[in-house]
């Protein structure tokens, strides 16, 4: 368990041990840019349909029929947008919120948004307001539906209380969730709500899969928000991402085969 000696030693140009990473990074960025450019030039990027996203209109319809509201949340996400792992998830969740709010505004269904992330409040308010505006119903937007509670536990408790009192017809959880995932998911089941979720936090995926009717895992959350927004920038980078995943897959396969020969060529190359 000794510290790796010599790590970070500066070579002529690039720091030793980071050369392959640099080449890989540059390759990724170039590829993303190429696909983004092609997408903007009209090249069609198709993303498969996500059952969870396809179920959102169904959830809205259910809420409209039952005369009940919808609950929406983007999770605890470490209470900040600036977290590198959680922030993108929250933003993807807010992007999907815009879509859900439009459908809800169209059907006359009320959405309640609960959060404990203070820096997301202006974004959420603008997103929801714009959604009502685009549906031609700006007067229907009530800022009081956005409920902020500081801290994971108060946010969770408030959500449980809301679910028990208001009995929403559908719960939509899209974002960076922590232990509140299983509690909220199960509480939603208690009241018989239809539940749709999406998170990239590996430790909560099993709980959402167990408690929700539809669950998106890992990358699907980002891809779904891209598919909804139909933004060529995002769609292009997702395509580039898929290509790089194939490259990684090929490297893993080659590495697996090479490992039988006993050589460490590939490992040494990747550690360069």
């Amino acid at each position: 368990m000794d510290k790796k000696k010599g790590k970070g030693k500066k070579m002529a140009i690039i720091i030793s041990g980071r050369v392959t990473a640099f080449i890989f990074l540059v390759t990724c960025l170039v590829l993303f840019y190429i696909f983004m450019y092609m997408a903007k030039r009209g090249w069609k990027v198709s993303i498969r349909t996500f059952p969870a996203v396809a179920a959102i209109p169904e959830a809205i319809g259910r809420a409209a029929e039952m005369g009940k509201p919808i609950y929406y949340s983007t999770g605890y996400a470490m209470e900040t947008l600036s977290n590198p792992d959680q922030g993108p998830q929250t933003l993807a969740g807010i992007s999907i919120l815009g879509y859900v709010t439009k459908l809800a505004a169209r059907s006359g269904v009320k959405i309640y948004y609960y959060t404990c992330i203070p820096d997301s409040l202006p974004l959420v308010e603008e997103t929801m307001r714009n959604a009502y505006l685009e549906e031609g119903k700006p007067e229907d937007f009530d800022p009081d539906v956005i409920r902020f509670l500081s801290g994971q536990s108060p946010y969770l408790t408030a959500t449980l209380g809301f679910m028990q009192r208001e009995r929403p017809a559908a719960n939509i959880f899209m974002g960076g969730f922590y232990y509140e995932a299983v509690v909220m998911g199960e509480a939603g089941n208690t009241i018989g709500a239809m539940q749709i979720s999406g998170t990239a936090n590996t430790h909560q995926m099993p709980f959402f899969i167990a408690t929700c009717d539809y669950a998106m895992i890992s990358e699907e959350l980002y891809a779904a928000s891209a598919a909804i927004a139909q933004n060529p920038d995002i769609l292009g980078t997702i395509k580039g991402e898929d290509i790089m995943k194939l490259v990684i897959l090929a490297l893993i396969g080659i590495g697996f085969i090479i490992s039988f020969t006993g050589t460490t060529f590939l490992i040494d190359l990747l550690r360069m």
Partner: protein
Amino acid sequence: MSEVLRKEVVYLITAIVALTMIVDYFFGIQQITDAASMIRTWAVVISAMALALGTVNLMRSHGNIVRKRVPGRWFYSGVLIFFFVLTTLLGLLNINDPSSNPIYKWLFDYPYTSLGQTLYAITGFYIASAAYRAFRARNIDAALLLIAGIFVLLKNAPIGEVIWSQLPVIGGWFNDIGQVPAMRTFLITAAFGLLTYGFRTLIGRERGFYGEVGGGA
């Protein structure tokens, strides 16, 4: 300054900062390293200021609820504001060592700690009912998941070893070897997701980052 120009300035600053960090990591040029260090220190300071932002938002949203006397909610918001002000004042009275104040310490040692642990503890109950409801052998995949789950549960609980000495071995295999490829997949895909997000932020195409979030329908 026009709205467009304001956003362009934000994109430019973000791109410069991101490039500085990338160059610092790979090239180790002393001037860039010094600049990157300074930027990181600024980021830490700005993050600390986010606490103040959270405070303002909290007071604003709950203050509005109290002011409007929203039925069913204004009382709880009032309690929140009361304890917020009380804790802040107590902390400021002993700014170098707030926990030397007995009331401050009591508030954290008893209500805060107990309530926090209670909220976390209810997770166990919900997991139990979720497992009962969701773990059904509807098909082969679900049955395999069920069996693996039982082995892992018995590996975690010391009683598993008492029931059969090989139970922890099998459960350990699922935990330590069986599920590792799947977790590695999630790690790799999550890393790519972050990479693309960072790339879009770098070139100013990540709208959500700049407050332009919206969905198509």
